[in-house]
């Protein structure tokens, strides 16, 4: 694997649990990517600023607080406003099935719940990296369907 992608892993909002985010960050590092971890309790603006300044290709959002329905779409909107429409957004944490359609509609291209093998996240990243329709700014409705 000689393709190095820059990926921001972020914890938006008031949520102190980052074991999952750290496991994902480490798996992506071990797959050869450069992962920038923002730390806990970031605002949407702080996260989007980090994505912009680090020139990240991917943004992984983790939420276990139940506020994903507000935070994830807010971040997607901010990315588009900042002209960062080619960034690919994915999410994880405790996300009920019935919330997923709204998040996908907002531009979150994949949602990984507890128990997801890290290999699946690596496969998603490699697949989405080459798809123009995967960017958060693409009005494509594209959602990752699994490896």
């Amino acid at each position, binding site marked *: 694997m000689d393709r190095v992608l820059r990926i921001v892993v972020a914890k938006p909002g008031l949520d102190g649990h980052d074991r999952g985010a750290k496991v994902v960050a480490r798996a992506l590092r071990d797959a050869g990517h450069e*992962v*920038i971890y923002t730390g806990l309790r970031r605002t949407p603006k702080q996260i989007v600023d980090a994505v912009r300044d680090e020139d990240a290709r991917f943004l992984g959002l983790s939420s276990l607080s139940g506020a994903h329905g507000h935070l994830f779409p807010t971040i997607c909107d901010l990315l588009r406003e900042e002209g960062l429409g080619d960034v690919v957004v994915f999410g994880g944490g405790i996300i009920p099935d019935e919330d997923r359609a709204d998040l996908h509609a907002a531009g979150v291209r994949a949602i990984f719940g507890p128990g997801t093998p890290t290999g699946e996240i690596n496969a998603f990243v490699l697949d989405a990296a080459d798809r123009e329709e995967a960017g958060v700014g693409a009005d494509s409705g594209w959602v990752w369907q699994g490896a």
Partner: protein
Amino acid sequence: MRGATPASLHAEAVAGSRRALARLLTEVEDGRASPSDFDHHGAVLGRSLAITGPPGVGKSCLIDHMLRAWATQGRSTALLAIDPSSSLSGGALLGDRIRLTAPDEQDIADRIYVRSVATRRATGSVPTVLGDLVRTLHLCGWEQVLIETVGAGQSEVRCAAVADRIVLVEGPARGDAVQAEKAGLLELADLVLVNKADLDGADRHASELRDALSLNEGTPPAVLLVSAKTRDGLDEAMEVLADLPERPGSSRARARERLANAVERYLTGHDDYESMLADIATGRRSVEEVMGVLWRDQ
């Protein structure tokens, strides 16, 4: 914007686009662009300062203070935070942003740029790329560039040697001063800050460092006690940093590191590098014979 030329990204970055600046730095880091593509000055446009030292001495806390202080004075400052890549996977976990709070303050955020940089795999290439990243930031109007690197090995020492000035950060109870000497950073330092002065052992470590430094030739760097926690000594340190003179000894040591890096880069970038290693390993050629080939090629 992906696919834009370096010159157009540079023009946008100069006009204030952070997105263009970030993309331009990626192009330079990945080797697709070089500062010479948009360098119409050729002159020195800014300064660079390396902040280095062992893990856990408080480099990030001190840098956070510097970013805030300078940005409040209206001086724009960029930080290149260097972290190692895994030698196994080539990937990297870059976490220096976690400890920085100055970039979150909206009234000064425009004057602070933070970029994480992985050392990547190729030996000898990082410091060269780093020099290009510093130059790129200067050319985009970021007059002041900080380089944060853990001072714990040869490649880190060489990263620090890219900067115009080097600040070594130490902590209390770091063993004796020999530990600092061994890392090879003491001779490169233009200034030494002993952080965590609120803790026991900081005074003693500072005086041990002064003793060790006084044995070297020339003017030793100042050793200042600071505490990022209580803020003691920070104002004085910032005053010294504002106009830090270069020590003759450190400029020679930095030149040596830069030259050694250029030689290493030439060696590892040589077309026959792998076959040279294989020949030496199997005894087909001696190190001296390979050296003969390398010199002749020059």
